[in-house]
Every structure is written in structure tokens, then in C-alpha cells.
């Protein structure tokens, strides 16, 4: 089997690295070899984070070569745009519509792109956008956004969504049934959001 390349991007503090780790755990649960790596820099301070996950029979280099990513999971709009060249031509981006504007833009030194979604579409790559932040807020806690994002990618993996869901819920087992249930709902909501967006005409 060939190697699957998943790119998870966002900014420091959004939970990008944890989400990628859970994806890696799911791949391992499926019996794959897996490597996960970040180009993070001083990511804790609101910088750019791009997390690479590669899995398959045997993974050598941990880095995804530009132009070979199978799926891009974007936690933030401009960040999803920043990494489009990493995707295989025509591959899919699953993107949170949230916009996190950095101080350099607030200071007027740079502009935030007007419409990242439209820019991504221009490349010919597929893109599905959804508001993970609002979905999480409706479920009662903005921090569920991470699980919403994982739900969003669940039907774009070469293994069943339930494997990923199990790995997500495992993280909350010790914290009580209420949290497990909330995360189950967040995961389902993420899946549904992408499913609906894909079904709707572009």
C-alpha cells in the first residue's frame, strides 16, 4: 500500500499538533507505520504550524513533499491557503472558515486575504469550508473545535471514521461520560458539516 500524506495546518495554540497525533494513533490502530512531524518554530506564540502525518506500510521521510499531500485539514482560513502547494493536484482541503488576524495585520503592515476560500478554488484544488468554531460554540464549548475538525476529516481517510472516533474518545474516557458524549457529538457535527457542504452545489 502506498503512503498517505495528511497535512494539518493552523496557528500555535489551536491544537493542530494534538489533532495530528490523534490521526496518527488512528492510523497505527489500523496497523500502519506512521510518522508525524511539525514545521512549528516558536509555535506556542501564535506562529504558523503545519503538521505532517504520513502513514502506510513503512514510512521513511517524515516530511510530506510539496505537491503530494492527499488531504489538507485547515484550522484557519489563511493558513489553509498558505499550504495549497503542498497538495496533490486536485486534492481536497477541509477548512475551518475562522479567521485569526495576527498583530502584523492589525498594525497595517500586511493585509489579510479578502476571500481565502475563493483563492483556494482558483488553484483547481477541491475545498470544503465549514465554521468549526460556531459548531463548537453551539455545542457549548469553543474547545470542542478540535474534535469538530477531526470529525470533518473522518470521511476522507483510507479507514473507517469509527476508528478515528475511538481514538478521539479514548482521550476523554478518564474525564467522564459527559465529556465523551460531548466529543462524540462534536465529531458527528464535524462529519455532518463536511457531508452537507459536499452534497450542496458549489
Amino acid at each position, binding site marked *: 500500500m502506498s503512503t498517505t500524506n495528511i497535512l494539518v495546518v493552523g496557528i500555535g495554540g489551536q491544537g493542530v499538533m494534538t489533532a495530528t497525533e490523534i490521526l496518527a494513533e488512528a492510523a497505527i490502530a489500523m496497523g500502519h507505520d506512521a510518522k*508525524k512531524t*511539525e514545521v512549528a518554530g516558536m509555535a506556542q506564540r501564535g506562529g504558523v504550524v503545519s503538521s505532517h502525518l504520513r502513514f502506510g506500510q513503512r*514510512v521513511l*521521510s*517524515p516530511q510530506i*513533499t510539496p*505537491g503530494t499531500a492527499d488531504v489538507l485539514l485547515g484550522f484557519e482560513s489563511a493558513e489553509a491557503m498558505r499550504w495549497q*502547494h503542498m497538495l496533490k493536484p486536485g486534492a481536497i482541503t477541509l477548512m475551518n472558515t475562522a479567521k485569526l488576524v495576527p498583530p502584523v495585520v492589525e498594525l*497595517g503592515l500586511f493585509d489579510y486575504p479578502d476571500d481565502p476560500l475563493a483563492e483556494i478554488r482558483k488553484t483547481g484544488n477541491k475545498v470544503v469550508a465549514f465554521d468549526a468554531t460556531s459548531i463548537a460554540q453551539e455545542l457549548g*464549548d469553543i474547545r470542542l473545535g478540535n474534535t469538530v475538525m477531526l470529525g470533518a476529516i473522518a470521511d476522507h481517510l483510507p479507514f473507517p471514521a469509527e476508528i478515528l472516533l475511538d481514538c478521539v474518545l479514548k482521550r476523554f474516557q478518564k474525564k467522564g461520560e459527559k465529556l465523551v458524549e460531548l466529543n462524540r457529538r462534536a465529531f458527528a457535527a464535524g462529519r455532518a458539516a463536511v457531508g452537507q457542504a459536499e452534497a450542496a452545489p458549489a
Partner: protein
Amino acid sequence: MAAVMPAPAASRHLMSGNEAVARAVWEAGVKVAAAYPGTPSTEMMEVVSTYPDVYAEWSVNEKVSLEVAIGAAYAGSRAFCCMKHVGMNVASDALMTLTLTGVIGGLVIAIADDVGLSSSQNEQDSRYWGRFAHVPVFEPADSQEAYAMTLAAYELSEQFQVPVILRMTTRINHVKSLVTVGERVPHTGAGFKKEPGRFVMVPGNAGKRIPLMFQRDIALRAAAEASPLNFIEDGSDKRVGFIASGPAYMHVKESFPNAPVLKLGFSCPAPFDKCRELAALVEQVVVVEEVEPLLETELKAQGLKVLGKEILPLQGELSPNVLKPAIAELLGEPVPATTPFAPMQVFPRPPTMCVACPHLGVYYTLSQVRNLNISGDIGCYTLGAGHPWQAMDTCVSMGASMGVALGMDKGRGESDKDKRIVAVIGDSTFLHMGMQGLLDMVYNKASVTVLLLDNRAVGMTGGQDNPGNGRDIHGEDAPRIDFAKLVAALGVKNERIHVVNPYELPVLFKTIREEVKVPDVSVIITDQPCVLIKDYHKLKPFEVIDDKCTGCGNCIDVGCPAIHVTRRGKEVKASGKEVDLAFVRIETSVCTGCGLCVQPCAPKAIVHHVPTAPIQLVKGGCA
């Protein structure tokens, strides 16, 4: 971190290179482990500290950490020490003599090279230390190898009574991959036995040890030739054979699956015969090494015809998208495109200071005081060089803010003869290597104002404890240094020492402005904790009353990432000058109520936020 039950032997885990090394340190029966935090090495010691039966410490700097490890190894115990690449610059004084005494208990020094400078002031190749200090170097290529090579390094260390360097890079330290772990084997040392000819390195004794070191080099090279860590994988495409180590090996295998490869794990002293063996198999040899042409130069000196940095970059990682085009060009093949289309233009997103960071007030103030040259240092506060403050003019090495400030003071030229010299340094950096510089300033009668930003943590590496916050590596109570007393003991006059709250801008401004005028050494200590550690307490958030906001943008100049522009405009002043306006809002969900932005707001548009609905928070509710 609290001690946890170690995972059972033979189980398989997704581990970073750092976690894998820590596990092996524990399994090897190491008794003493010491380090100073530094990206990308930090997690090694953090994780070691969670294992039982290992003494682990945060040392004040890398040199001390190595000396602690040396003492334990002299006493016959197994010892471990780790650091980032620049850490060895500090520790090398000890290393260069340690190589003469050798060790009794095994000693492994893990050095993490930040290849690609994700969080460092330079890029260095720590493999040089192996050559310089005549000690063996191991280079793992993934987490499983990091684990296995750490165990093998302890065996080699004791076999040859020599410290072993485990050379890692960010792409090993921080990459997570599967590791099958093993059993812990306790190791008991015999205790320190006095042997002055070996352990007291005065000239007469040290001189006698040098020939032994050279003999050891010969024996180590033979060991490298025979080591299973160095092996050739033959391949069908004989046009190019590769010699690679560390992460470069994985990139080579990924890029050229059919090429013969000599994989070096025990890379110093280099196994020249093995390299010749590969050369005999192929038409030409390319040495793929991060960063310097080290092995390449040695092989050329051996008369081997190899290529290396003629076709590969001298800087950064050698990932497949670097290797494939280089080799295609060498073979006269069409060079593959590195990306399907050019990366899209998106604004940069440099790291920022945190919401409510106590350094914000300091840099906002420094940016408002004129006529300063500001010598900076290494930590979160290095971000003060960036927007909007641009209030740091130099950054060299740990503690350098002190000496550089003194030199700037004494070396003034025509343009800066009236400038005030300020040095900015964090608490942990000050304890690491700044104290000596301050003493030097006092002794040599400098005219410098030192801002000692005490946020009670090693902030940039993740808030590790240090002697300034009264907690040890396990988070337990430890003696806490009193910075005011410390700087007084170094000779700073009591009237020149001020402890201020960095959230009180008028006090900070007045103190800095007055002290920079005094031709003496002053120390202004700020005393509020890092917002990411448990000592920090959040206050009620603020919000902006939109009607009152005049768009002056003063609050934006504080640099807090919780402040966002809602709309922009222009205003023509009475003088006829057109000014830009930026009306703002505060992201109340992240505002911690520090009040910094409130102070420069002339129209008093920033007030405490009154929530419209109770904030719902579920404890631990995020993945």
C-alpha cells in the same frame, strides 16, 4: 511533571525522538541526568524527570549540567546530559578536558541541532564536537533508532571509558514514530575512586592522557568499521551511491529507493573502509549530510572521489524536495518541479507575545523612550525586536546582553556618544550566563541600565522551572533566589536597584527614563509571572466601547494579540496632516484583564467587560 508508571517492556508506542531517548536513559539504569532547557532538546529532560529511580535536574546552564553528569560518571554511575546545539558551546570547556579523563560510568550527551533554525539564533553542526574532542558520535534517523542508539551508546561509553555524543536534529527530536520499548536494567556504580593521574587534569597529568586519547581514536575507528550501526544497503541503480546519516538517511531512502546507501549510525570516527566499500559498488558517491561538509571533507582527504556540498545546500534540511532536483541535475535528467504551483502569497505570521504577557509593558515603554540603544538577549523577550515595539537592537547568545551593552557603552562613536545604553535579559538567561556580565559591568564602571525581566520561568521553551521561581524539575519547593539581593551582591548600588510591576506603565516609564540618565549600572527588575505558568492569575476581561473609540491606535502599540481592528479610517488634523485611524475591539474570550491597553487609551474607551450570558466552560473539554 509527576512520576508516571513506565510503559511495559515490549510494548509499542508513538514517541518523539526526545521521548525515546528519555525511555532509553531510564532503561539503561542512568542514575543522574542534568540539562538546561533549549529547543529542540527540552522534552528529553522533562520526560526523564517523570521516570522513577533517576535523579533529574534543571541546571543553571549547560556547562554545569555536563559537569554534574561528569561527577556522576566519575563516581561510576551512568549519567545523562542533554542540550541544544548552542548549549555545547557553553559546555565545551568541560567536554574538552573530559575527553582526557574519560569516564567510569557510561556518559551520554545528547545534542539537539536545530537544523533549519526553527527556534535558534544560528545553525550549527554538533558532529564537529566528536572530531574536536575525540569522542564518538551516534546519529539516529528516527525515534526507534534514538532509543536503540542511546542504549548502545552507554555500552560503548563504558567499553571505551569515553563520553558518547548522541547527535540529534529537530527532525529527530520532535518527530513522532513508533518505538518498541524494553526492560529497565538497573546499573550500580562502584563509587568514586581517587586516581589523581586521571581525574586531576594539571599539565603533568593531562599531558600523559593525550597519547591515550589518540590510541582510543584508533580503537574507536575500528569499532565504527565493525559496528552494526553502519551498514550498506545495496540497490539496483548504481549511478549514484549515497552516504547518509541522521534524518538525511530517511530522505535519501524516500527519494532514491533503488540506490545503494551506506547508512552511518556510528558516524565518528568515520568508518573509511566502509565508505570505500560503497564507492566500489557505484559509479559515483554523494555524501548527504546536515549541515556542514564534514564527512565529505574527510573522505576527500582520504583520496575518495565523492560529491557533497558542490550539489547540495550548506544550510537547512536535506528533505526529498531538496535532494531529488539536485541528483536529477547531477545525472543530467529533467529537474522535477518542486511544487505544482508557486506557494500562494499570504501575510507572514511571526510568533507573537502572549495576550497579557508582562513583557508587553516593558517593550511598549522602551518603544516610547527616545535615544536608546538596546542590547537584548535570548528568550520570549527577543520578540521585542519585532513589531510593534522594535525595541531591541542586538541578540547574540545567552547572557550576551550584558557584555554587549558594556562594549557599546565603552565603544561609543560619534553618532551614539549621547545615547543611553539599555540591556534586556530574562530571569533564567540572567542566571544561565548573565550574572558574570553584570559583575563585569559593575567592576568596569559601565553606564548601562539593565532590565531584568523576571517572569519566574524559562518561558520560550515552555515555562520550565528555574532557581528564580522556587520550584525544582518536579515542581516541588526549592530555594528561590532573590534577584534584588543577587544583583546587590554583584555590586549594583542599592539606590540603583528597582523592583517594578511591569503592568504599571507610568511607574515603569518614570523608572526607566530616570535610570538611563544616571551614569552608572542600574538594574530594574520586573516581577510579574509568565501568563502560561500556574503563578499567573487571570483578571476580569476588558472590552472597547465602540462609540468612545477614536481610532487613535495607541492600544495597538502595546502589541497585545487580543486587540483587533474593526475598521480603519482617515482624519485630517487641524495642522492639515492626514492621519490613519484604526478602531478596535478586544477579544474578550482571551483577554485576561491585565489592563495594559487601558493605560494609553486617552478617551477611556476600554472598560471591564460585562458578559451578556454566563460563560460556559467545560473542564478539559478540548481534544
